[in-house]
C-alpha cells in the first residue's frame, strides 16, 4: 500500500505538477498585461522607477530564468513574495484565505453527500415510485441551474426580501462568536455550492445501487427468499458505495471551481477572490501558488479516493 502511494506521488504526481506549472508559467508570462500596471498614473513617476521595480520583481528576465527561479523557490518550500505593493509572502496570502475556502468546500461536500446518498438509496430502493420520480426530477433541476444564479436568488429572498440571513461575509467584527452565528453566514453559500453535488451524488448513488441490485448473487439471494430490505441495505449497499468513493476524488475539482463563483457572490473571504485579483494584476507568484496548491490538493484527493477504495474492497490490492 505505502509503496503504491509513494510510487504514485513520484512517478505520477511530480511529473504532472512539473508539466502543469511549466505550462502555466509560460502562459502567464507570454500573455499581455504586466505586474507593474498598478503604477499607472502615479504622479511624477519616471521610467527608471518602473524599470527598477521590474528588475526587483525579476520580470525583466527571460521566461526560462523566471520559471527556474520560481521552481528553485518551490523546492525550498517557498512560494515567494507577492508582486503587489505589500510584498507579502504568498504562503501567508493563501494561508489566510485557505480556512474559508476549506470550510465552504467541506461543508458543501458534507451537505452533498449527507443528503445525496440517502436520497439516492431510497430512490433506488423504491425505483419507479412517485418518490423516485420526484427525486429524479429535482436532481435534474439541481444540476441544471447555474450556481451563480441560484446564489443570487437565495440572496434576494433570504437576505433582501425576508431579511433573515446575512448577505455575505464570513463573520462581522464585533459579533459574538457562536456556532449558530457561523452557521448563519455559512448557510446560503453552502446551499448554493452544495445543490449541484446533492443532485449528482443522488443520481450516481441511485444508478450504482440499481446496477448492484441486478447482479446475479442478489437475484439468487432474493430467490432464496431474503427480504428486500435485507438484500438492499445489508448486501447491496456496501458494493454500491464503492464506486461512489472514487466519485469523491473527481468531485473535488468541481467543488473548488464552484467555490470561486460562490465566494464572489457572498463576499466569502476565500481563495477565489484572491485568485481573480491576482489574475487581474498579473501577480505571477500568487497565480502560481494558488494553482499549485489546488493541484496538490486535488491530486491528494484522488490518492485518498483510490486508497479508501482499496480499504473498502478487499479484492483490490495496490502493488
Amino acid at each position: 500500500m505505502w509503496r503504491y502511494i509513494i510510487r504514485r506521488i513520484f512517478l505520477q504526481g511530480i511529473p504532472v505538477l512539473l508539466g502543469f506549472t511549466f505550462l502555466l508559467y509560460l502562459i502567464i508570462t507570454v500573455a499581455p498585461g504586466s505586474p507593474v500596471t498598478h503604477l499607472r498614473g502615479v504622479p511624477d513617476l519616471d521610467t527608471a522607477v518602473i524599470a527598477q521595480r521590474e528588475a526587483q520583481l525579476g520580470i525583466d528576465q527571460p521566461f526560462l530564468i523566471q520559471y527556474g527561479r520560481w521552481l528553485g523557490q518551490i523546492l525550498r518550500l517557498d512560494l515567494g513574495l507577492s508582486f503587489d505593493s505589500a510584498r507579502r509572502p504568498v504562503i501567508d496570502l493563501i494561508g489566510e484565505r485557505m480556512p474559508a475556502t476549506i470550510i465552504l468546500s467541506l461543508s458543501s461536500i458534507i451537505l452533498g453527500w449527507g443528503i445525496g446518498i440517502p436520497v439516492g438509496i431510497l430512490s433506488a430502493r423504491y425505483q419507479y415510485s412517485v418518490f423516485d420520480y420526484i427525486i429524479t426530477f429535482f436532481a435534474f433541476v439541481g444540476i441544471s441551474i447555474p450556481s451563480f444564479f441560484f446564489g443570487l436568488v437565495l440572496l434576494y429572498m433570504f437576505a433582501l426580501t425576508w431579511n433573515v440571513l446575512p448577505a455575505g461575509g464570513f463573520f462581522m467584527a464585533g459579533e459574538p462568536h457562536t456556532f449558530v452565528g457561523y452557521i448563519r453566514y455559512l448557510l446560503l453559500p453552502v446551499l448554493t455550492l452544495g445543490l449541484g453535488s446533492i443532485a449528482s451524488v443522488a443520481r450516481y448513488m441511485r444508478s450504482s445501487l440499481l446496477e448492484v441490485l441486478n447482479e446475479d448473487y442478489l437475484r439468487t439471494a432474493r430467490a432464496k427468499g431474503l427480504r428486500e430490505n435485507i438484500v438492499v441495505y445489508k448486501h447491496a449497499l456496501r458494493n454500491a458505495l464503492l464506486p461512489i468513493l472514487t466519485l469523491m476524488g473527481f468531485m473535488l475539482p468541481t467543488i473548488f471551481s464552484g467555490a470561486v463563483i460562490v465566494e464572489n457572490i457572498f463576499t466569502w473571504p476565500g481563495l477565489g477572490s484572491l485568485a481573480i485579483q491576482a489574475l487581474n494584476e498579473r501577480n505571477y507568484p500568487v497565480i502560481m501558488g494558488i494553482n499549485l496548491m489546488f493541484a496538490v490538493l486535488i491530486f491528494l484527493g484522488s490518492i485518498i479516493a483510490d486508497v479508501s477504495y482499496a480499504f473498502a474492497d478487499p479484492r483490490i490490492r495496490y502493488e
Partner: protein
Amino acid sequence: MKQISQSKKIWRRFCRNKLAILGLVILIFFVLVSVFAPFLTNYDPNRSNLRNRNLPPSGDHLFGTDDMGRDIFARTLYGGRISLSVGLVSVGISLSIGVVLGAVAGFFGGMFDTVIMRIADVFYSFPFMILAITISSIFGPSIYNTMIILGILSWPSSARLLRAEFLKLKNTDFALAATTIGANPSRVMFRHILPNAISPLLVSATLGVASAILSEAGLSFLGLGVPPPAPSWGNMLNRARPLHILASMPWMWLPPGIAIFVIVLSINFVGDGLRDAFDPRQVMNE
C-alpha cells in the same frame, strides 16, 4: 443489417422514455428558434435605444428591453445561437482531441498509453474553473476563446472513456479477426472499433454540451465568457446581477435564466434517455 436493427431497437427504447422525448422536442425547438432567429424578430439584438431602456414586456417588445434599450426577445433568440454554439463547438473540440488520443492510447497501449493518460491526468486533476479563469483572463474573453478553453479543458474524459472501450473491444472476436486478416491498425480502429464505442461517447458528449453551456454562463458571470455586446444567455444573466434588477425587473433575467435551465435540463433528459437506451442491462430488465 444487424447494425440497422440495432439502432432501431435503441430508438424504440429511447422513445419509451417520455422525459427523453420531451427533452429532445424542446432541444429541437430551441435549435430551430435560434437558427431562424432573424425570421422571428425584426430587432437587431445589439442595437440599443437609450430612450427605450428597462421597458417591461409589451406588444412592441415581447420580453421587454434591457438597460441599454435592446430588445430582450431578440437577444434571447440570438443568445441561443451563441450559447448553443459554444456548447456544441467546445464539445466538438474536446471530442476530436479525446477520440484521437483515447483511441491511440487504448489501441496501441504501452508507451502511448502511459504518456497520453499522464497528460490526461494533468488536465483532469486541475480545478477546471480556476484554470479556465486563468486562461480566459489572460487571452482575453471572446467567443472563440471560450469555446477553445472549454474544449481543451474537457477532452480527458472522452479520451478516458474511449480508451476503456477500446481496451474492452480490442480483444473481441471481430477486432481480432480484422487484425489477423491484415487490416491496417487505423482502419481497424476507426472502421471497426469506433462504431461500437460510439454509444458511451454519445452519452458523454450530450452531457458535455449541457455542462459547457453552464460553464459558459459561469465564466460570463465573472466577466470572462462571451464579451459584450454580443448576447449569450450567460452574459445576459450577468447583466441582471444588480439587486434592483433582480428585484424589480424580472423580464431581464427570466428569459435567459429559463432558457439556460430548460436547455440544460432537456439535454440532461436526452443524455439520460440515451444512456438507458444504449445500456444492455436495461434490456435484461425488460
